[in-house]
């Protein structure tokens, strides 16, 4: 069965409500919590690996969205192949979130995958195609 990793953003009003258990009960999805935290007065964030049938996954995501949960693909979808990267920096001004930056001292390119929103703009513009999408 396929697994997918997604980031869930819970608005403040949903933080105290049981939601994720329904993914198991109603949609037969297994979940693995990779990361979760609630910031006071702000929002809840959870990174889940969901395993289940494709149409159940789709329905589960629709359910989450109908509750008001915002869903984002996980940054680790995009990885840097270190053996291909030449640290040129062509990707740096293309990245919309500052996930790719040049270290001012070493002049090497740093990839902050926690800032990556997996827009994949860097993937094709990388001259050596060092940025890879993991399926």
């Amino acid at each position, binding site marked *: 069965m396929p697994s997918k990793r997604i980031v869930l953003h819970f608005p403040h009003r949903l933080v105290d409500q049981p939601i994720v258990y329904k993914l198991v009960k109603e949609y037969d999805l297994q979940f693995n919590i990779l990361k979760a935290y609630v910031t006071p007065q702000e929002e809840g964030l959870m990174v889940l690996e969901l395993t289940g049938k494709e149409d159940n996954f789709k329905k589960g995501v629709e359910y989450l969205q109908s509750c008001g949960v915002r869903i984002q693909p996980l940054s680790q979808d995009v990885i840097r192949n270190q053996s291909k990267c030449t*640290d*040129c920096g*062509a990707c740096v*001004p293309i990245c919309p979130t500052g996930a790719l930056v040049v270290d001012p001292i070493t002049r090497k390119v740093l990839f902050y995958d926690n800032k990556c929103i997996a827009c994949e703009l860097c993937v094709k513009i990388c*001259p050596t195609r060092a940025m890879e999408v993991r399926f």
Partner: protein
Amino acid sequence: MKSIKEINAKIKKGEAVVVTAEEIIDLVGRKGAKKAAQEVDVVTTGTFGPMCSSGAYFNVGHSKPRIKIGGGSCKVNDVPAYTGFAAVDFYLGATAVPDDDPLNKVFPGEFKYGGGHVIHDIVSGRDVRLEAAAYGTDCYPRKKLETLLNIKNLNEAVLFNIRNCYQNYNVAVNLSDKMIYTYMGALKPRLGNANYCSAGQLSPLLKDPYYKTLGVGTKIFLGGGVGYIAWHGTQHNPAVKRKENGAPQAPAGTIAVIGDLKQMKPEWLVGTSMLGYGVTLIVGIGVPIPVLDEETVKYAAIRDEDLYTQVVDYSEAYPQMVAGSLAEVNYAQLKSGTITVRGKQVPTGSLSSYSKARDIAEELKLWIRKGDFLLTEPVAPLPQADSGYTFKALKERPIV
């Protein structure tokens, strides 16, 4: 003050003082140019960027029966090579693409594999596929050849790049309303980014701006092996405007380089795909500068802050051959991450890897310190700034 002969004697004894083009800046800052010139024997430079006028020639040996690929056609891993030589010599250019590549038909084309990648595969020691077709002669009867090749079995595999190592380069921006895809990378609309391509204070020709220590025959670091400057490069343009420190303010000198591909390393010759533009090869080059006198040191110690270049619009001015610069900026500004163009803060990106340029200068330093790499006396100078040598545009004439 010092001769190359004297410097070589010190290198042989393992006594030569070698520093990189970055380290000399610091040294001159602390001790002054006079003292630095007395202490230092060699300054090493480096650059690692896409250089399209690159390629390699090969002699694959004669098959049994013989085939005359010369005048016929051949492909290596589906990438066509030039065969207009004798029987089994051919030249593979960095920008060549397979005949069935979709190119820019679906824009922007991806250009996933081409000549640059084949050269990288060959230098990596991978087997490559040769397919050749010939017309057949009495002495070369065979008409078709399909075989795997490996660099270790070839008679000659020689990197021969007719223009590398540009002395300075444009900064590319896009003034139009749509994204454009250029050899300077993807440029976002309305000054969305500014891409540059030079190692600045580490770049070989910027550290000897009047080509006083290098020329035809100069031994260099090329693709991780030993190479030589073969000639001035195509489009060599030494007469451009220069700052008081001698550094050109726009693309100027170039070099043609040659070296044994068999000694080179895949780390320093990397096949490259420029989205919407094409295939090319990233080449690593390092040139040693012998410290002959105080003047050599002064030039070698020019800093990023004092190296200037021009910001050019690649949506209109560059393609239409309209001269003009939107701004003049220095490499310290470019490396800070933003430059100001028409009052707008524009984020910068580099196509040339400064960290790899630094690695090359360090590697060459090591070679010289170990006594493995002696310096050469140039056998002929490159066309000088006052030589009248220029880079001309094409004047089209109708064919009647």
